[in-house]
């Protein structure tokens, strides 16, 4: 970079000091407080709190639904990103702008509207419920809501990569007689794969922590449609601070692990780019 050893710009001490102070006061110390609280528990107590059958059912739903939703987004998000970057059609720009809608829409509103759409008398539920597809107050409802909130991730991660793809390689393949399908399988798919995985991981990470929309759509029945973040709130409302903290610590450690793997994935993906 342009910055050499001697840097005449002022303000490093001030801005760095403020950054560290603000970061510590509002993020690091509060998170450390949670772990400190967890360490007050003995290992045995901790294990009992986090491995109760209700908690295990909640993890299973949280991670299972997040995984399915992220997979749906990986498939349809890739397709949508492809359609939006490669083809011209009426309304493309509008659709492109709309992809960010789940980012911008408050999750409570997302939950509210999805629930009313898939309920028995809703616009979609009125056709789906007679077919036996219950998109409200069921595990399926959780998957639908998580698909909605995770939708932009795969599309937005993939789009810049698709735009920068050198078409000469595809032309070369075509010149050498490869069919379009073969070009896609042997050239495009391997190039795009790491980026799709990154987008998938981002959507998964978002889905694991999601709370606002799920509260509305799932019905929050213990053992059936209760997600892990909701169980934390339940424990908190029972003034069971240790129970809430222990489950929160589990979620927090898992989200850190996901964050680290996303960082690794991004370096892997950018290595394939050039």
């Amino acid at each position: 970079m342009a910055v050499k050893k001697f840097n005449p710009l002022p303000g490093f001490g001030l801005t760095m000091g403020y950054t560290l102070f603000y970061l510590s006061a509002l993020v690091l110390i509060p998170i450390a407080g949670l772990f400190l609280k967890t360490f007050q528990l003995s290992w045995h107590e901790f294990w009992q709190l986090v491995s109760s059958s209700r908690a295990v059912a909640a993890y299973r739903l949280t991670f299972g639904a997040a995984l399915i939703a992220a997979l749906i987004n990986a498939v349809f998000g890739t397709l949508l990103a492809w359609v939006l970057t490669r083809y011209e059609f009426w309304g493309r720009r509008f659709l492109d702008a709309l992809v960010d809608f789940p980012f911008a829409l408050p999750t409570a509103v997302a939950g509210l509207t999805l629930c009313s759409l898939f309920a028995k008398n809703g616009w979609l539920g009125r056709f789906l419920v007679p077919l036996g597809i219950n998109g409200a107050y069921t595990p399926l409802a959780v998957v639908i809501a998580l698909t909605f909130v995770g939708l932009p991730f795969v599309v937005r991660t993939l789009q810049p990569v698709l735009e920068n793809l050198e078409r000469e390689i595809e032309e070369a393949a075509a010149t050498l007689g490869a069919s379009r399908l073969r070009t896609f399988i042997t050239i495009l798919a391997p190039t795009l794969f790491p980026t799709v995985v990154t987008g998938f991981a981002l959507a998964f990470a978002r889905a694991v922590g999601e709370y606002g929309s799920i509260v509305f759509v799932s019905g929050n029945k213990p053992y059936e449609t209760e997600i892990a973040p909701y169980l934390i709130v339940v424990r908190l409302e029972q003034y069971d601070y240790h129970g809430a903290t222990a489950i929160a610590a589990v979620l927090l450690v898992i989200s850190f692990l996901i964050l680290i793997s996303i960082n690794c994935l991004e370096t892997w993906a950018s290595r394939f780019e050039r």
Partner: protein
Amino acid sequence: MAGGVKSRIRVRQSASRRGTEESPLVRWTLITIGVAFALLFLLVPLINVFYQALAKGIGYYFSSLADPDSRSAIYLTLLVAGITVPMNLIFGLAAAWAIAKFNFKGKSILITLIDLPFAVSPVVSGLVFVLLFGLQGYFGRWLDDHDIKIIFATPGIVMATIFVTFPFVARELIPVMQATGSEQEQAALTLGASGWQTFWYVTLPSVKWGLLYGVILCNARAMGEFGAVSVVSGHIAGLSNTMPLHVERLYNEYNSTAAFAVASLLALLALFSLGIKTWIEWKTRRDYDLAQRAVAEPEIER
């Protein structure tokens, strides 16, 4: 404008690039599936919000918004965003200046730490503040003795909101400031400008779009945050209910039309944010294209 030029080029290319185009059948199948998926998951939920909000007529819509509890929820949401966004804006500027303009050890760790709140579940974000300031928390006894309320009151809501919106401005600004480098600032300093003048007249104008982008995203999330705020607020109607919490309350009271009325304001906010975002993207792309053309044109003439 740019679209017209682009599409004309596309047409000419497609005539000569048959080998790299899918057959029309494949293309239109993909477009149909993609558009259907997007409409079903994006447009239908959006239209439904406004349809449900107006289900009992425009009069009912405005009377549910004018309800005192709704009004106080709107006021609290504006207040919280009004404190949160400037706080994170100042932090974002400071962090971006330190990270983009200087070299130091542990820079990538610092960037990861700033991104950390994005990885934390909103509920956990609220919980950490309850554990610090709640009645059973580390500072709970002391705060109670001094009659200071943080949890179940506005300060707690503000802190939880700052936590969840923490990275927005900083992560938009850092790459923009890194891309512009620091030659211009150094030139300003050499010409005798003070540090503040340099920042105000040189740095700030060059990052203004990135800054606005970050502020818009930060504001949208601050006004719409549900999980973290729900844990710290205590849901006291007329006192510590923000708009998203008020939506839930109305919904639980089986007043779904009123819930959708408040929700429609949040949906309008989302649309407004998207509009500004698209506008900034269009503007920066146009500026970039113009700059590219200005560089390329003399060569064409030659």
